[in-house]
């Protein structure tokens, strides 16, 4: 029970309080570009949940057993505890993400062609979504263990999903409003995001 509530509170914290998009600004590019339609925003959100839930634990294992200080000790070669490859973190993580996206794409194409069709162009674009790389880097910085990393990855994705679907529905309603000329499009989307982010601030302080 103890463990379960720990993971639950980590998930709530990651989804609402430390929302990857509204508190850390990660994934803004696709957030603004893809939130014009509700259907596509749901597709992108699902793809992010999926890919993030897989890549964060995979990157955790890579960091734990290959890259971190003394991570290569399991090879049993003398002197390995001195080796610190953490300067390679960025390049290895981005390669893992690109490879995982490719893999997810092939599996989806084989298993569920309808879902694959609906995600369409968004799946490959995820490889350069800051939210994915950002979650992996946060995972290293905050020193999670494997289970925490898995929970964190999935709930960061869910936080992104919630935020992008909220903005997409608001922009849909916005079509019928009279926005000042210079503010149309990106400007009003930024202001709306500010308001959503302010609403999410009210979650801070909640502890499970």
């Amino acid at each position: 029970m103890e463990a379960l509530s720990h993971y639950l509170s980590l998930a709530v914290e990651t989804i609402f309080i430390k929302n990857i998009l509204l508190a850390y600004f990660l994934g803004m590019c696709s957030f603004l570009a893809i939130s014009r339609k509700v259907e596509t925003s749901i597709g992108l959100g699902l793809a992010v949940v999926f890919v993030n839930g897989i890549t964060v634990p995979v990157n955790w294992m890579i960091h734990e057993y290959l890259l971190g200080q003394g991570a290569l000790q399991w090879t049993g070669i003398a002197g390995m505890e001195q080796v610190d490859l953490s300067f390679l973190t960025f390049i290895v993580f981005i390669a893992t993400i690109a490879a995982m996206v490719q893999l997810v794409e092939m599996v989806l194409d084989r298993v569920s062609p309808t879902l694959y069709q609906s995600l369409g162009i968004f799946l490959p674009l995820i490889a350069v979504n800051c939210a994915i790389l950002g979650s992996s880097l946060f995972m290293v910085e905050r020193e999670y263990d494997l289970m925490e990393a898995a929970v964190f990855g999935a709930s960061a994705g869910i936080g992104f999903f919630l935020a992008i679907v909220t903005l997409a529905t608001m922009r849909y309603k916005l079509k019928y409003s009279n926005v000042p000329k210079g503010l149309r499009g990106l400007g009003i989307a930024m202001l709306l995001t500010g308001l959503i982010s302010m609403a999410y601030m009210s979650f801070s302080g909640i502890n499970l």
Partner: protein
Amino acid sequence: MATRKNFSIVAGPLSRSNPITTQVLGICSALAVTVKVDTALVMSGALIFVLVGSNTIVSALRNLIPSRVRIIVMLTVIATLVIVIDQLLKAFLYDISKQLSIFVGLIITNCIVLGRAEAFALKNSMRESALDGLGNAMGYGLILLLVAAARELFGSGSLLGLQIVPDFLYAGQGGWYVNNGLMLLAPGAFIILGLLIWLQRTVTGYREE
């Protein structure tokens, strides 16, 4: 060298085709590092290095890269440059690199870098690509500095760590002024950038479809 075309490649991204406000690229880091002016300055410097470097290298390799694997080749070039700048920052500006935390690493996925490599450097000569990189990185830096200056001034009453708002104005010391704490939080960044985009688009007359 200093022809009109080269000049417009550098100067265009500063206002009319600004990467942040017009092309909608690289917003993530623009918001995250702008609580204080000094982090924004360092971040802009890092981006100038990475963007000029990546544009030049990608342009030099543009006839050798097969188009099917171009994304991964470009990412490798960018990631290498980011590792170099990250190690340099850790060595010489350790405090600021701690404050920037993961956002230096996130230059890899900064859409400006990949976007300019894909849209410009793959089709143009090395010198023009380097200039394009310089112009776009400076356009990015300009917006970063404006947002950071607004947030630091209203949020902490200082600029570059120097106090601007005089002591006697503050509520605790007989005055009436209170710093706006919202500016230091995430919503402040979104709203300041939104207003800046409004201003820039009203001045240049850029309209979205």
